[in-house]
């Protein structure tokens, strides 16, 4: 399969490509969401330890994973933008940040609402929880830094630096459960070991993860289109869209 990648590296072509892809991912997201919720609520059995409260897992874990994945992806694109001066990748990074922050917030929120019945408290200054909070701060810092700088190119570059620096936090979050003895659950899904939880639970969770992926892609593409339009508003292809020239 040979796709002309360079063609899609131009903001204008990407704009159109994204326009075509969005409906596709939206449909997938809805399908996975419905399936995941069905499995989560009607197939997966009651947990013998936690009762029904564990059903929070179906959003908590996808959200927590997405929050970390998205950060890495964002930092990756921002870094590419900084290194090769490609506008599109920087715009992509900017588009990812709010969604990442949202998932981080959801992970924190659902974690807290899970912690209350399980640990008896909304919040503890435990390593994983704290580092997830830090992740939220990182996202917010990235977004506020970009918002505070008027010149978009400078904002891109400055944001890239902070995004790249913040990547160190990701392994800390991930391994925090191993490094400290904490309240929080250790990894129960891993490639090496056979899963410790019921298959239906696992399947439900994974389907929800897929839904989260599809949703993120769709929403990020939408936002990226906005950013492209805004940044490129003075260019000829936008003028063409407007129908003023042609």
């Amino acid at each position, binding site marked *: 399969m040979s796709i002309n990648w360079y063609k899609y590296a131009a903001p204008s072509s990407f704009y159109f490509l994204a326009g075509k892809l969005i409906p596709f991912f939206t449909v997938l997201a809805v399908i996975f969401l419905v399936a995941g919720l069905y499995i989560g609520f009607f197939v997966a059995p009651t947990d013998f330890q936690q009762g029904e409260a564990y059903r929070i897992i179906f959003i908590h874990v996808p959200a927590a994973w997405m929050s970390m994945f998205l950060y890495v992806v964002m930092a990756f694109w921002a870094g590419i933008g*900084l290194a090769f001066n490609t506008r599109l990748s920087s715009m992509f990074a900017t588009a990812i940040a709010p969604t990442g922050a949202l998932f981080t917030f959801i992970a924190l929120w659902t974690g807290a609402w899970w912690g209350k019945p399980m640990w008896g408290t909304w919040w503890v200054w435990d*390593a994983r929880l*704290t*580092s997830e909070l*830090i*992740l939220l*701060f*990182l996202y*917010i*810092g990235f977004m*506020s*830094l970009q918002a*505070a*700088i008027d*010149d978009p*190119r*400078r904002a891109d*570059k*400055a944001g890239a*630096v*902070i995004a*790249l*620096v*913040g990547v*160190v*936090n990701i392994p*800390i979050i991930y391994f925090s459960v191993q*490094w*400290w003895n904490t309240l929080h659950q250790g990894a129960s899904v891993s490639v090496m070991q056979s899963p410790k939880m019921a298959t239906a639970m696992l399947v439900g969770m994974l389907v929800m993860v897929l839904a989260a992926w599809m949703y993120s892609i769709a929403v990020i593409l939408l936002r990226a289109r906005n950013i492209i339009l805004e940044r490129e508003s003075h260019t000829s292809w936008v003028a063409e869209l407007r129908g003023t020239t042609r």
Partner: protein
Amino acid sequence: MLAMRRQADVLITLFFFIIVVSLFPLGVGPEMNILRAIAPGVLWVAALLASMLSLGRLFSIDYMDGTLEQLLIAPSPLFLLVLGKMISHWLVSGLPLVLMAPILGIQYDLSLEALGVLTLSLLIGTPILSLIGAIGAALTLGVRGGGVLVSLLVLPLYIPILIFGAGAVEASAAGLGYDAHFSLLGAFLLVSLVFAPWAAAASLRISME
């Protein structure tokens, strides 16, 4: 290079530490067991604050009076100059604390071993604060509301240092091993020593565009 100015600044920070650290017993009351429990936290928080609060001045005075432009067009590699700035920031905001820690620790009735661990953790940890902080300071130069932003950017990166640093002392107090903490801190230090000057130099260039 700016030895004369540095002197005054070191005094400020020393003073700051003494205030923070001595005010607590005044505010908290003199129960020794409480004081002992909070000592590492207080010292580490003081270090963090001292570092963060002096970040504002790290580049902004030079920025305003034009020295920073001269720095950028100096015929020596920028990251070396930036490293120099970072070191002098540490000398001003970190080193005094490391030196004072044993004395202040005694005030809080820490055991000898805890004192040693505390000082060592500060010695490894505070340079990281300066190294990372400089990046944030460079990025927020001349940005609206730079003061909040620099805290917002830098704090998430400071917190792990705080946790590991204070954690080491607590682990030692609890009789647990603290090697893991130290090796992590050391790894952080190395990584940031390699990347931070470079990142801060890039940030400076970006900010001065």
